[in-house]
């Protein structure tokens, strides 16, 4: 185990996979200088500019060229810089990467990882702060991952690179400096599609992912002081999501709260809530609760931006309301 940041954990994962497989390469803007968040720092020194490729600011062609390069047998890791910018490449991701294997009748795979830094990052405003994971979950052909810890950012990125599917890999910008224990073992991976039980409890199931897991942990700790035992599930992968883990927990607790940073309307929480309602309604002791952002663009000014956040106190109130109802 080594203590390292979420950003360094991702760099370690990429370096290990590039050593392991000569067909893995990364492409995107400013990667040779370490990437805009430093998550590629040092990699060009070891792997050279062909495999840590600096590209023009051409998101559509970064994505589209990666599709072509994946179709001919390389494993590109695409850096989109901000998930918001990946919207310039939606055709290449949704119409090409996600469809090629199916619509060509299985003749080729598209083994690529699309790194999309998501989320609010103090005063980055409406075009640099979004969490659009639910859009991609909706698209057949894609895997969607949103790690919350340094260890998971290493293990999940390694699994994503080894996967033959196109994986939308959403790292939260506020998590880059987060430190944690990370396994050194080069064979360490975290399987895609499996949730992490972050905290055990019998009273309320709280499902979250990405940065919101940290807020949820704070709220769960507060709840514990009041005698409420929260079971916290960090989903880690949104498609496929670990339905079995969530259902098992809800069967135990009878109460479900889903919290995410993304807009609540049409957010992925709705899918989880609907699934639990369909499959475990009889076990519920209280109506399912969701917490997400209001359906408003993200503001620049601090107090306005904070008005859109799901805060630990709001989470605590929701937990309390579930137990009281």
């Amino acid at each position, binding site marked *: 185990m080594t203590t390292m940041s979420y950003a360094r954990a991702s760099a370690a994962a990429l370096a290990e996979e590039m050593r392991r497989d000569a067909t893995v390469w990364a492409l995107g803007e400013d990667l040779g200088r370490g990437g805009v968040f430093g998550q590629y720092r040092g990699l060009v020194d070891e792997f050279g500019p062909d495999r840590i490729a600096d590209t023009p600011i051409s998101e559509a062609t970064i994505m589209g060229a990666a599709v072509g390069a994946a179709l001919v047998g390389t494993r590109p890791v695409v850096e989109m810089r901000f998930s918001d910018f990946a919207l310039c490449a939606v055709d290449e991701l949704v119409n090409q990467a996600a469809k090629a294997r199916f619509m*060509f009748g299985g003749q080729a795979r598209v083994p690529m990882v699309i790194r999309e830094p998501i989320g609010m990052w103090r005063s980055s405003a409406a075009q640099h702060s979004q969490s659009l994971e639910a859009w991609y979950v909706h698209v057949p052909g894609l895997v969607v991952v949103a790690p919350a810890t340094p260890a998971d950012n290493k293990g999940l990125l390694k699994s994503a690179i080894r996967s033959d*599917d196109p994986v939308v890999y959403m790292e939260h910008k506020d998590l880059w400096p987060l430190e944690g224990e990370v396994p050194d073992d080069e064979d360490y991976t975290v399987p895609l599609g499996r949730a992490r039980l972050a905290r055990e409890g019998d009273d309320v199931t709280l499902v979250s992912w990405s940065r919101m897991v940290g807020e949820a942990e704070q709220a769960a700790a507060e709840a514990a002081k009041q005698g409420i035992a929260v079971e916290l599930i960090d989903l880690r992968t949104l498609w496929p999501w670990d339905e079995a883990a969530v259902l098992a927990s809800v069967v135990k607790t009878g109460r479900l709260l889903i919290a995410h940073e993304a807009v609540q309307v049409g957010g992925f929480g709705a899918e989880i809530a609907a699934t639990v309602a369909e499959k475990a309604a009889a076990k519920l002791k209280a109506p399912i609760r969701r917490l997400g952002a209001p359906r408003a663009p993200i503001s620049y000014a601090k107090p306005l931006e904070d008005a859109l956040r799901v805060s630990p106190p709001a989470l605590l109130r929701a937990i309390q309301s579930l137990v009281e109802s």
Partner: protein
Amino acid sequence: MTASKPNIDAERLLRHYRTMWRIRAFEQVAERAQREGHVGGAVHQSIGQEAVAVGVCANLRPSDQITTNHRGHGHAIAKGTDAAAMMLELCGKVGGTCAGKGGSMHIADFSVGMLGANGVVGAGIPIAVGAAHGAKLKGEARIVACFFGDGAVNRGPFLEGLNWAKIFALPVLFVCEDNGFASTTRANAVTAGEGAAARAESFGIPAFAVDGNDVVAVDGLVGDCVERLRAGAGPLFVHARTYRLMGHTTADAGAYRPKAEVEAQWGEEPIARAGRQLVALGVPEAELAKAREAAEAEMEATMRGAIAAPYPPLSEAFSDVQDIGAPE
């Protein structure tokens, strides 16, 4: 009308002639089968444009690759895709190039380097560039030819893709098959400046204009280009002027064009022109008739086979979506 003796040997030109007839017959049979209800969706014919597909692909090796657009039957056949499998695909049947899951607009045959038609204008450009980039990373010597139309030059991926190919010095042959129409709008009415070739040259990519209805001219030019590409010249650009004799799709009568214009263009179409060139080279007319009849017989037979073939099992609707999180 007679043709002067073209600079090509008769055997090579006869091969081109046969392939052009195979493309034409394929699309004519497909159109009829669509009217009869055997082919669904949109079918975009390339009738009148066959010389571009044939003249380019005749210079490619099996290991070379192409991407194409929604009007890609000709490119696919010229690159060696099995026409019977293509016809099965158009009918959505078992044995189709894409297992009946893609149809006309998504024909692909990776075994012959045909990396896919595309339903989105210009979308094949970054994919072609990426295929060349991937080959370069793997140290594989091949070139990639990228077919697109005059409508694609107004899309961002065209400009991004050309820039990318140039800065990474990739062996991509960009082929703008300029049939005059962006869907049902005249391309020159919606394209600023001097057009496709000038845009390529502005990126420092050498661009060459050619009469796209003259298979001998296309073959000769592309032969030179391919030699330069293999020698490491970086990307090159071919602007082939041709004319779309049919509508945008089989559902489009093309009534926005004067009849006289279309009739005049039928006089310029590439197959008859190649026929005149063959006669000038001493090939008997009977040989030409035989080529046409053989192509038509082949495509009629493939269509009969496609109509008789079964639809895919329903499980195909759920296979090859993805490994992890596939539909249950």
